[in-house]
């Protein structure tokens, strides 16, 4: 074990404290909304399905929490025919 490793090991409690503070601030703010992603997914699928026939398994929703900005990534696979319709060709 190098000296650097040794020093790093010593300081793990402050890292734990900080990670917990960030995580719990988020979890407390979202208490009761734990199924928000599932709700979003259903509603997005419903809106699109009104116009295009899509496979509901081809909708992927990902959430990524950053320090300053969080992103919601929605990935919808559109069948070839409907895709042609969309871009107007």
């Amino acid at each position, binding site marked *: 074990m190098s000296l650097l490793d040794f020093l790093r*090991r*010593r300081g793990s*409690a402050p890292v*734990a404290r900080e990670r917990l503070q960030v995580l719990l601030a988020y979890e407390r703010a979202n208490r009761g909304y734990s199924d928000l992603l599932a709700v979003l997914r259903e509603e997005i699928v419903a809106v699109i399905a009104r116009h295009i026939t899509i496979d509901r398994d081809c909708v992927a929703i990902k959430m990524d929490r950053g320090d300053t900005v969080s992103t919601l990534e929605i990935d919808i696979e559109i069948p070839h025919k409907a895709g042609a319709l969309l871009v107007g060709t």
Partner: protein
Amino acid sequence: MTAKVVVVTSGKGGVGKTTTTAALGAALAQGNQKVALIDFDVGLRNLDLVMGAERRVVYDLINVVQGVAKLPQALIKDKRIETLWLLPASQTRDKDALTEDGVGRVIAELRETYDWIICDSPAGIERGATLAMRFADTAVIVTNPEVSSVRDSDRIIGLLDSKTEKAEKGQRVDKHILITRFDPARAARGEMLTIEDVLEILSTPLLGIIPESQEVLRASNIGSPVTLSDPASGPARAYLDAARRLKGENVPMAIPGDRKRLFNRLFGRRAA
């Protein structure tokens, strides 16, 4: 008599709920309080084993809830302390057999004749855990100084503030943190979350600090609450202090060490 209903809960498993239920219950009973311990861990009961009563279980909580047995038939009297009783969980039945009405009736009946009803919650946030906390006046949230335990305690605090009968009536469950398996030397070296870290993160008052100790395992090995198996040990003294705080006494916070260590060292005996 109107008992105070205490839930011992944590969210996370393996942090010491059953050990704590046994030790706090015994400590209160040692102070001449009449105490009933209820195991809510249907299918995975262990409070009977930790209390050394595993061979005396005839009826259980679900039998009482379903009217198969009367409450006095199911309660097991402790052989060491006159005023301590245990209501075991069912080992074979499905946990869905526990109903809110049934649990409410059992607790209402116990309230009339006991000073304390201590509910040992199962891990998790499912039915067993929510029923264990449902009728609580006071909650003891058992927390290890470790990230996953602290996170789960925070979740449980959220449930105590929303899913209990008190919360639904607009009242508050009186919540306390009990830190178990604490190692002061490791915390001082920055290797373990400190007491201050945990309390600041959870913003909940402290009931006690139970030091990491071999005596806890020894107590469960022999089927005795640690406050009885070795009252001079660090964890026993910490639990005895915590029980006095539960009763509303003002006891200075300390992290007791094992008193007998010096004695054993002098006489060359092995601890434990």
